[in-house]
């Protein structure tokens, strides 16, 4: 009995001391099969990763079945693979995406390059072209600007057939203290010669709750 009390006392004192000391920050390497952390105030990996995966995957899937590929498989002279200038990721949502923007660009660029469906132009050439012409990404659709930009890209030895834009938008629905935010990633590819465009979107809806109870309540309401 006395020993048990001693152990309990020691545990209580030890626990008290531990609770009262400053802990050191630590980190672990998360395994890929573990679910991402969910941003409590804004979108994070849990939102952007699936958005990019779905939008890019569907765009590439559609184009991988296009006539040029079918022709190639039928041993006809293969049409050249389209060269894509991935111009920018535009954030038009209600949130700051901070360091995610660059990552979204790199992930999309890597996916496209790896698919072999399109041939992306290196970002370094795209940035150099924009800097050289002093054109904003949204100004490229003025015909003269487009010609200037294409000419600069050709001078750099990087001709391109289409421009690609990724745009993140959001829509917010409020319900008292809680709100739902729908995130939409749109990939828009514009043929620089014909002006024809193709579009692929992916959406994710996220609920933000002011407390765990509110979250629980929302789920029960959904079940009803």
């Amino acid at each position, binding site marked *: 009995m006395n020993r048990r009390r001693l152990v309990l006392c020691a545990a209580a004192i030890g626990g*008290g*001391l531990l*609770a*009262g*000391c*400053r*802990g*050191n*920050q630590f980190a672990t390497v998360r395994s890929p099969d573990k679910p991402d952390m969910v941003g409590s105030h804004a979108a994070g990996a849990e939102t952007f990763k699936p958005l990019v995966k779905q939008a890019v995957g569907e765009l590439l899937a559609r184009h991988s079945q296009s006539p040029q590929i079918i022709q190639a498989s039928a041993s006809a002279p293969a049409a050249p693979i389209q060269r894509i200038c991935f*111009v*920018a990721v*535009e*954030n*038009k949502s209600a949130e*700051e995406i*901070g*360091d995610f*923007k660059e990552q979204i660009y790199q992930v999309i660029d890597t996916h496209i390059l790896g698919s072999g469906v399109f041939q992306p132009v290196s970002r370094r050439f*795209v*940035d150099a072209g*924009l*800097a*050289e*012409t*002093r*054109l*904003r*990404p*949204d100004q490229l659709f003025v015909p003269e600007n487009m010609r200037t930009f294409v000419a600069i890209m050709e001078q750099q030895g990087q001709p391109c057939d289409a421009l690609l834009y990724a745009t993140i938008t959001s829509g917010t629905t409020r319900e008292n203290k809680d709100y739902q935010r729908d995130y939409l990633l749109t990939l828009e590819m514009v043929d620089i010669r014909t002006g024809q465009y193709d579009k692929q979107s992916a959406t994710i809806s996220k609920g933000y709750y002011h407390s765990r109870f509110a979250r629980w309540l929302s789920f029960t309401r959904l079940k009803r």
Partner: protein
Amino acid sequence: MFHLRPSAGWLVTILVVASTGCATYADRLTTVRQQFAAGNLAEADRELKKGLRRRSDRDCIKLDRAILQLASGKPKEAEQTLRVVRDRFDHLEQPAIAEIALSTLTDANQEAYAGEDYEKVLTRVFLALSNLMTDGGDAGAYALQVADKQQQIIDAGVDQHGENPKLAYQRVALGPYLHGAIREETHANYDDVARSRAMVCSWQPNFPFGAQDLERARHGRHSAPGNGVLYVFALLGLGPHKEQAVEAPTTVSLLVADRILSATGKHTLPPTIAPVKVPKVVLTPNSIHAIRVTVNGRASGNTETITDIGRMAVDQYDAIYPRVIAEAVVRRVIKKAVIVGAKEATRTDRYSLAGVGFDMAGIAWEASESADTRCWGLLPDKIQVLRLELPAGQHQLSLQSAGATGRVLGRPAIQIVTIENGRNTYVLANFPATDLVGSILTNRR
């Protein structure tokens, strides 16, 4: 009313101890600030090194050393120093029960210094500025951390009653301003630039260049072909620091309260003779209004305030001042309670000599307190900026302090800067008084 009959000698000794106390951080800082303002960087650094012996002061001293390193043309060292302090302040945000207990029995100087809220944010601002003066590779990340840290601080400011005094905090617009400048240089992320510039306009509405920066971000371009952009950042004046002040109304209230309790209770309480000392954020008068920028002999404009550190520090401190007083009162009450507890434990009679001795010890104990005046003492009063679009090539830049009427005050400081086509060039100058201190820093010479 009073039942104390101390000998005159005892009382004199106690009062002398109470009035003199120990040298505070503020006392040591005075010399450092004077040497810095006079441009004696080596002497200021020597004074700072003397303070490194006290462990609890080291982080503050490191912050001041970072400013000296920056002024001495060593931005890499400054960045390294600031990174260490940033991480340490983050670590010290967690409460430590033992330190809190010790500080309750002594004074707030016994707790490790975790930095005031404005200091935590400004650490990131100076990290961004230091990094911009080198390769600039991490400056964007530091600039994002400025807004992020501010949000964290405000989010954590909710008290038990659901009120948040930190909601009124003035935000540091320099963070988004730097982020906007860095993103604008990419020529591809004008949406980010517009967002950052809108934030600057909202957080610092009286920044005169805010509207035109936002307009350029929405509809304009970084610069015309063949041109580049020069950003001149100026650190103006000596910034806020802390001084020990006597909280007279609290002292009197405590004295009245302990006299009532002494008259009605079983034991007497040590009278609140020693004043309740609290730190106060104090501003230093600053005669410099702006920095006049001349390029190749032609006046190009004056810098304008993007972050008023002095004002921000005072406002933030005012918001948390009631908590500072409350902590000082709690310390006093606990000390008095310990003395009463000791009297009770030793069954001391309230009229006995031992009782008087306990009270004298209590007074001496209370008098040994000193306010926690640790702070980042070499911060500037204001951070100002001027953006100029210039043709690519080398230019002679001259910076000169100017007063409120526009009259120049100090000697011009000259620096050759290189402007690259389509790129940003950053310049940082320190004007704690009318003349430049140290050297003008730039990322392109």
